[in-house]
């Protein structure tokens, strides 16, 4: 993975595969605390404590059909966070869901860029019409806080039976995300 937003996409796919119906994503860029925090919270099937531990091992995958038991998504994300004096925490409860919190030291030389957050979110939202996304982007900088909130449940309600892949809807979501990312200065993080 070349950037944090690709890891984020990978994590969102995990949540979707765990049958989540609601996925909350928070990206918090806190300049005074020199921290970039990503939180992904889902209401999927969740994991027991053993599975939770195994999920952080590169030689574990939940994919039964896989011949070679390798699952690198979570271990690589963890490694990339820890390489920046950051931390990686996962908490889960079977039947309730999973919360993942990943911290990066913002100005650490080894921190990978946040990357194209817009394409990650756009693809995830449209590619998973069965999931409602609640997104929050927050930047704390120079005593100011700027935030962007995007809730796809409200959009789907307004659209009724019009699919998210309808051309004008793609354009709408793309533009909304772009504005939100610009307003919270998340473009070149």
């Amino acid at each position, binding site marked *: 993975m070349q950037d944090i937003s690709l890891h984020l996409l990978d994590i969102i796919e995990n949540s979707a595969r765990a049958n989540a119906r609601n996925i909350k994503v928070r990206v918090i860029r806190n300049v005074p605390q020199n921290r970039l925090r990503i939180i992904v919270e889902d209401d999927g099937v969740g994991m027991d404590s053993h599975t939770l531990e195994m999920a952080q091992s590169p030689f574990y995958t939940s994919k039964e059909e896989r011949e070679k038991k390798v699952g690198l998504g979570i271990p690589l994300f963890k490694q990339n966070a820890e390489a920046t004096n950051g931390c990686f925490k996962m908490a889960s409860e079977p039947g309730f869901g999973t919360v993942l919190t990943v911290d990066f030291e913002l100005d650490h030389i080894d921190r990978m860029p946040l990357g194209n957050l817009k394409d990650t979110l756009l693809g995830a939202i449209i590619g998973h019409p069965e999931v409602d996304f609640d997104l929050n982007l927050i930047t704390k900088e120079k005593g100011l806080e700027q935030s962007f909130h995007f809730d796809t449940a409200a959009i789907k309600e307004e659209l009724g039976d019009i*699919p998210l892949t309808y051309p004008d809807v793609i354009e709408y979501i793309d533009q909304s995300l772009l504005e939100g990312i610009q307003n919270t200065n998340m473009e070149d993080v």
Partner: protein
Amino acid sequence: MKTLADLKKIREKAQEEMKLRGGNVRIKIVVGMGTSGIAMGAREVMKTFLEEISNRNLTDVLVTQTGEKGLSSMEPVVDLIEDGKPKVTYGNMTSDKVKKVVVEHIVNGRVVSDYVVATGN
């Protein structure tokens, strides 16, 4: 600033169109978005499909994302599913290949055999 009122206009327009052509989904596109797919560029593939749908105003296709299915060496992988036809799986996809698949397969109905890695189930 985009508002929910904009969505209402979109919905009215879309509903008019659906009345005219029946609102059927003709082709379903499924982009493999497992870890290896993402690492190989599946997000860009997804993005290009969405751009093409938007630019060409294709109202009868659906795009979704799924996990990987054991074709890791050919990622990014995309399935095209049409009613009454065998499923076509394209592999090693790139943004340029997506554009070609949209023109040839989705618009003109001709499978791009050079990119096909599997057909059927």
